[in-house]
């Protein structure tokens, strides 16, 4: 098996997702093909060559469905359509085919917990309680049911129940009050969801990111999260895709503690029979904390607390995404832990309030951006990059809080950053123009021309990751070591062994590592192929530059 080639064509490798590099791309903000000021599918098609060059194996598209857009498209009003400003179903089909032509897969967001209140199902349900959609949502005569379910969006919602003046009943919603939860007790709802999933699979997509899966079912006396019925339905989706669409991946978004998230992988004895992948949420804030604290323990601890996962499953890890991943968005347990453990300092909380992109969070410090990226590409799990972070794009904190990190991709130093030919005033979101991150300084064209740019560096790192299967498939062992500011680990996959040593501190650091089990091998640095002194019996001494890191291959035994 070679790893420096594109992920094999569909149908040839059911575990392609375990070594894929994912890339989250917002259609609206990537490339505008028709000059109307909003990105669209044809624009995205034009940029597939760029993404293939970068080394992306799989694109993740957040919702592009028809929607009143009160929740960034996560309020879907038609499960089988494309938002007109993004293009047509035909555009989508061409996009999937073109991506496949370049060896890239496509995973789309699917929001099954709830719909928009504008969805025809909801409109029918509220006006005709006895009609075919009357039981599609969770209705009640009062708002006293399921009192143990927490309110997730505490800043905007006061209850999980909202009164509907038309039907004169309360409907259940775990998120915004304009997003009624579907009633999964109703077999017709389950069938309708299956039908929608098949619709997209028939168009050739390679999988779904399943949004907000812990909340599908409700039951009195529980917190209405992670219920057995929810797992049961996910298992039935898995069985459907395995039977009818092999090679399809289900990536679940369950913002929970890793010990709870593993439930979503399903049965260990058969290698997992529920979701193929799940996001590992706590890793991201831990990386920020570890670098801030100049201590490896925030990362080491969460890795130690992460259970093994079934053989055919994989974590998804990320540094940033389209959401702000604040402490408000993690579980109560995790938030309490974070605050008690690490956020005693009020400045810390501000920094972890991550409604910002990677580069501005790290004050545009190249060394730190590279260190964070190296950690993302070497910790266990498939990395998910966020569009624009490969060039160190900035954000616009003056936009509404969710839009600040969704500004147009910066392609060139020309008008509208090369994103659109429209009148600048017509852009759905303005391009970033500040002196540090603005499109005139940071854009793909300039960085492609400069071989020492972050873009070229990122491309090279992805390539190295692909050349060494241990990064994607290997076991993880924390090496510890004498220096609390240095995190070192080995990833082992068969005879491919890589060792990563990362300096989390602003200062140069020495570290002594106990590498006796690799005695007699010679570390080869992976970026430059430099041979380091052979490993002996005594602790192996390395010195690291501030926020520096090494990737070594340890496979080579000395004669």
């Amino acid at each position, binding site marked *: 098996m070679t790893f420096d080639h594109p992920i094999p064509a569909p149908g040839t490798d059911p575990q392609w997702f375990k070594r894929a590099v994912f890339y989250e791309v917002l259609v609206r903000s990537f490339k505008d093909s028709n000059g109307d000021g909003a990105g669209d599918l044809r624009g995205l098609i034009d940029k597939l060559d760029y993404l293939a060059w970068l080394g992306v194996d799989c694109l993740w598209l957040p919702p592009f469905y028809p929607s009143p857009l009160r929740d960034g498209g996560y309020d879907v009003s038609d499960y089988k359509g494309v938002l007109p400003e993004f293009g047509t179903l035909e555009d989508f089909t061409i996009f999937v085919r073109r991506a496949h032509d370049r060896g890239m897969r496509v995973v789309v967001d699917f929001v099954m917990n709830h719909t928009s209140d504008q969805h025809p199902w909801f409109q029918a349900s509220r006006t005709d309680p006895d009609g075919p959609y009357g039981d599609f949502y969770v209705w009640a005569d009062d708002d006293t049911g399921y009192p143990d379910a927490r309110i997730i969006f505490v800043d905007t919602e006061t209850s999980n129940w909202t009164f509907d003046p038309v039907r004169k009943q309360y409907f259940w919603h775990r998120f915004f009050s304009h997003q009624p939860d579907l009633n999964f007790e109703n077999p017709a709802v389950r069938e309708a969801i299956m039908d929608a999933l098949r619709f997209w699979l028939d168009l050739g997509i390679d999988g779904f990111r399943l949004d907000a899966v812990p909340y599908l079912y409700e039951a009195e006396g529980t917190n209405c999260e992670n219920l057995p019925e929810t797992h049961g339905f996910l298992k039935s989706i898995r069985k459907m895709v395995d039977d009818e669409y092999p090679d399809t991946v289900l990536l679940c978004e369950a913002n929970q503690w890793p010990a709870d998230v593993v439930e979503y992988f399903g049965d260990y004895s058969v290698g997992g029979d529920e979701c193929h992948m799940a996001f590992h949420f706590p890793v991201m804030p831990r990386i920020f904390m570890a670098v801030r604290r*100049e*201590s490896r323990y925030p990362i080491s601890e969460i890795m130690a607390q992460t259970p093994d996962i079934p053989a055919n499953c994989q974590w998804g890890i990320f540094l940033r995404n389209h959401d702000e991943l604040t402490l408000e968005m993690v579980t109560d347990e995790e938030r309490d832990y974070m605050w008690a453990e690490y956020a005693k300092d009020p400045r810390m909380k501000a920094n972890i309030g991550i409604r910002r992109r990677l580069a501005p969070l790290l004050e545009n410090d190249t060394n730190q951006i590279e260190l964070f990226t190296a950690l993302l590409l070497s910790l266990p799990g498939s990395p998910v990059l966020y569009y624009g972070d490969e060039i160190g794009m900035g954000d616009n904190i003056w936009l509404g809080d969710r839009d600040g990190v969704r500004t147009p991709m910066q392609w060139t130093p020309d008008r509208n950053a090369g994103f659109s030919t429209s009148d600048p005033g017509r852009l759905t979101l303005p391009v970033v123009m500040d002196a540090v991150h603005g499109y005139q300084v940071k854009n793909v064209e300039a960085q492609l021309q400069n071989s020492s740019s972050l873009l070229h560096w990122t491309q090279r790192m992805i390539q190295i990751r692909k050349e060494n299967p241990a990064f994607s498939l290997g076991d993880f062992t924390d090496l*510890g070591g004498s*220096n609390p500011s240095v995190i070192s680990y080995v990833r082992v996959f068969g005879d491919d062994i890589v060792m990563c040593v990362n300096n989390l501190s602003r*200062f140069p650091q020495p570290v002594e590592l106990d590498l*006796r089990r690799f005695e007699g091998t010679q570390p080869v640095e992976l970026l430059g192929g430099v041979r380091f002194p052979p490993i002996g019996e005594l602790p192996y001494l390395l010195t690291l530059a501030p926020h520096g890191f090494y990737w070594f291959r340890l496979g080579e035994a000395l004669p």
Partner: protein
Amino acid sequence: MSAENWLVNATALLSGWLRHQRWFAGKDRPVDDLHVLAATRLRADDPAVWHLLVEVSQGPQTDLYQVPLSIRPQPDDRLEHVLLGRIDEGYVYDALHDKAATADVLERFARQDAIGSLRFITEPGAALPLGEASLVLTGEQSNTSLAYGDVALLKVFRRIQPGLNPDVEIHDALTRAGCGNIAPLLGWIEGTWEDRHGRLQEASLAMLQSFLTTATDGWAFASASVRDLFAEGDLHADEVGGDFAGEAERLGEATAQVHSRLAQVLPVGTMTPDDLIDLADAMRARLKAAVVTVPELTQHAPALETAFDELAEIDTDVPTQRIHGDYHLGQVLRTVVGWKLVDFEGEPEKSLAERTALDSPIRDVAGMLRSFDYAAWHLLVADHPGDDQITYRASEWATRNRSAFCNGYARAAGRDPREDAVLLRAYETDKAIYEAVYEARNRPAWLPIPLAAAERLAEGVR
């Protein structure tokens, strides 16, 4: 080879070699007499391995040392640094460094072996990393420790005192009690021998425990935080990224948990008001002697004495129990599952009776609080002497972390150690006086650290 012959020859090598070992207590005095009290052959040849218990007389002082030796017919370059010398039978090495000599130790534990003067005892259910090779860890003072793979640590006591070593005793009790804040005990080696008067003696010779692979010691971790603070132009201790207070608080919790476990599984007692008067007298006597060695203490002595006066005036019983006894940041390890306390031997220069005596856990708290002070100040005396701004921030760091430690301790113990203010001040004062004497003799550059503490304690500022 004949035991008699080589013993005579090897003994001749020992007296010169011993005096250069870090763990040898009488380096500054000549060896008057050297007597092998027990010799156990652990391996016949290639290399031959002998376990010796050697009594060393230096003037009136007699100490017993544990010296395993390996004898190889051919020299081994890798062992050159632990060569005692050459005798007719071959080259004599410190066997603890000789992997061939240490290879079967774990197997002996596994079958609970008894051979010669040695008996191998294993904790119930202990998992032993059979087949792993050993490696001597560097940096140890009074013992020699061997890591077997990254799984087990064999701590070989060098100077032997008859009786059960408190390190073994406490680890055994805490392991059986399921205490999570230590490295669990896997086993230990008991030794028996006849002393020169023909009396049978017994002692712990070595201890095998789990190796905490990914650990950092508390001193290195705290020093990293202090360095981080000093590198900032003007931020306070609670503002810098490397803030240690969260760690200090968790360390306080772990300390209290171990104390409470020790009180459950090992004897407890009380100090009566009369005992406290005696304790205060002993502390006064140490202060008096210290003033002679460290004249800088003189100006604070009357104020420091008030700490002991107050101690003598306590009119209630003070609860006592087994404690760590030599507690500081170098005796704790941060692992991925929290803080672990190590090394329950007590202060090595004290007698076994003193090291196993019951005492107030406040003594340990005082030891750790003094250690936070050292962590804050040691870089100051080394790198920034006389810098007022950094001095101010160092004391801020110490205050912040001392208080966080007490908060954590209070939460887990249900009682804040600062409520025992008189006891705490007396122990801290006594410790600072001890430190002043130690630094004046061994590390004059660090003397300002305990002196500054003495000044603060004299002012009643904590």
